[in-house]
């Protein structure tokens, strides 16, 4: 168990800068999720922490130790790969015991650790099998088992669930979170799936283009996104955006309709902004933004309505079951406290 801290970390691949001045502190025992679109540098950052990539500048510390020049095997970390990377010529037991055998741990301790881990993961009856004889979910568990027998300072996960089907992914998500609550080992988890990020993380790090966009607790990111990128990336269905201009305490949209804004301390009259409203915060009202129903999708628990308003496609999510037909004209409104305002030029939040 240890903290991890990154100071001004840089990484280039040839002329391309994939990590730009990354600063991040991860506390002992924390579960941090790095999330972002593909190519944002999240995997490179994880691999740099693992020592599989050499950074071009900055400092990486695991615990008190600076590990910039420490080999992966000496960093006392364990990693779960997207491809699982099980050793195909070794059975499950040998796969899990591999690292302990390399460290010349006593046989009694190895069998005890492997036994405990396989019991925890429900692999007890599979110890003699080869990886190719296992299903995707079982391979995933073996990869987890191989990581936990190590009892490492830090767990690193590189999109470990993206090769599983949707149902299994949800199960494993819960299991990994439960495992972390039990083991309390610092964990860094990379994913492009914002649902995984929201559900598993103590803190989420949103990355884009090699830069950290925002760091915070899941609901903090959801409720107060720092910029348009985070607002659009976190949350599903995606937040609705409208171009607008600030007029006194309201925003004048492109079609001329007005939307009341929360009290802004930094917004100025006439400022060009982007208004963001989450689908579940939009509701039908007698007055507001005029909109035309395009598609109605009943999801059972909720209903997702897609509308055309202000030259945009707008999504509305409601727990009620409105009776609507395509082409119906309605008005949309939102509580002022649910309206997010971003500066159009900088993309930053205006509050």
């Amino acid at each position, binding site marked *: 168990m240890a903290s991890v801290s990154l100071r001004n970390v840089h990484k280039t691949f040839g002329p391309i800068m994939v990590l730009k001045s990354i600063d991040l502190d991860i506390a002992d025992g924390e579960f941090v999720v790095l999330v972002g679109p593909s190519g944002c540098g999240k995997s490179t950052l994880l691999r740099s922490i*693992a*020592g*599989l990539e050499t950074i071009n500048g900055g400092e990486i510390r695991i615990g008190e130790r600076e590990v910039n020049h420490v*080999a*992966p*095997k000496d*960093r006392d*970390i*364990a*990693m779960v*790969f*997207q*491809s*699982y*990377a*099980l*050793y*195909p*010529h070794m059975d499950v037991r040998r796969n899990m015991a*591999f*690292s302990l055998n*390399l*460290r010349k741990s006593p046989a009694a301790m190895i069998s005890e650790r492997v036994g405990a881990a396989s019991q925890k993961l429900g692999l007890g009856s599979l110890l003699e099998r*080869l*990886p*190719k*004889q*296992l299903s*995707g979910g079982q*391979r995933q568990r073996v990869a987890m088992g*191989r990581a936990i027998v*190590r009892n490492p300072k830090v767990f690193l996960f590189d999109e470990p669930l993206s*090769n599983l089907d949707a149902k299994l992914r949800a199960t494993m998500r819960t299991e990994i979170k439960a495992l972390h609550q039990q083991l309390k080992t610092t964990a860094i988890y990379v994913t492009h799936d914002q649902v995984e990020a929201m559900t598993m993380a103590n803190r989420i790090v949103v990355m884009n283009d090699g830069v950290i966009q925002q760091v915070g607790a899941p609901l903090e990111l959801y409720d107060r996104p720092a910029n348009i990128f985070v607002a659009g990336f976190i949350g599903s269905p995606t937040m609705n955006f409208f171009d607008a201009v600030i007029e006194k305490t309201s925003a004048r949209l492109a079609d001329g309709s007005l939307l009341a804004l929360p009290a802004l301390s930094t917004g100025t009259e006439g400022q060009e902004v982007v208004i963001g409203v989450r689908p579940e915060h939009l509701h039908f009202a007698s007055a507001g933004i005029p909109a035309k129903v395009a598609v109605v999708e009943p999801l059972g628990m909720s209903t997702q309505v897609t509308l055309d308003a202000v030259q945009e496609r707008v999504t509305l999510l409601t727990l009620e079951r409105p009776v609507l037909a395509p082409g119906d004209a309605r008005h949309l409104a939102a509580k002022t406290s649910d309206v997010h305002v971003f500066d159009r030029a900088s993309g930053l939040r205006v509050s």
Partner: protein
Amino acid sequence: MPGQSFLQRLAGQIGLYAAVACYVAFALLPIYWTIKISVTPPDLLYSEGIRLWPSRMTLANYASVLEATDFPRYFLNSILVSVATAAIVTAVASFAGYALSRFRFRGKAMVSLVLLLTQTFPLVMVIPPIYRIMGQIGLTDSLYGLIIIYTAFNIAFATFLMQSFFDGVPKDLEEAAMIDGCTRLMALRSVILPLTLPGMGATVAFVFTAAWSELLFGLMLINSESQKTFSVGLLTFIGKFAVDWGQMMAASVLALIPVCLFFLFLQRYLVTGLTAGAVKG
């Protein structure tokens, strides 16, 4: 396939087997003919016309090859040269192929290009300079000289072959091993090597066969009886006025035996599919 009648399927099956039979006959006929001549008594060789099997059989050709000629010596020489060449080439090509597959380094494309270029020279063109060089360092008429030449000429292709096998092993596996506590060399030995054994088997087999059947350099560089390899030795059956076909074919059949045994032994390594299940496929 759906949409095909029974007759169409039958015709397809017959066509398939006929094609395979033609191919097998084409490939095996020379070997069959060699065996046939090797057991034909000399007096029947020209008198019976073209027959699929002689009316009388004899093993006299084999007996005289084994007892009256130097062939046992030639065999030993050939085995020594081929095994040594295969071992050295596979070892060097494995390391080179690994480097080309895994590392980024300056001049990598150049190295590949030069390796490829060496494959484009006609062998006949390089014989005079090689003869001169080998003569000056005293490696003509020596099995070591042959081993060095064969190694040099096989290493480029073997390197490409091994590179493709290393490319087939996911990089994740050795990264996992390195995080688990291996150095790069340990990861190579305990994870990558067991998975590339089929590839190494193929490389060994390829180089062994190439060295075993090589004639040109053997003929140029070897003079004394005691250093001849079997392919050079076969030529001794061609006299000034006659060719002893029976003995020559008997010797050829004997020469096939080690190669067959070798492939039998290597067969299990040649079966691929060992990496199945390593990563999601």
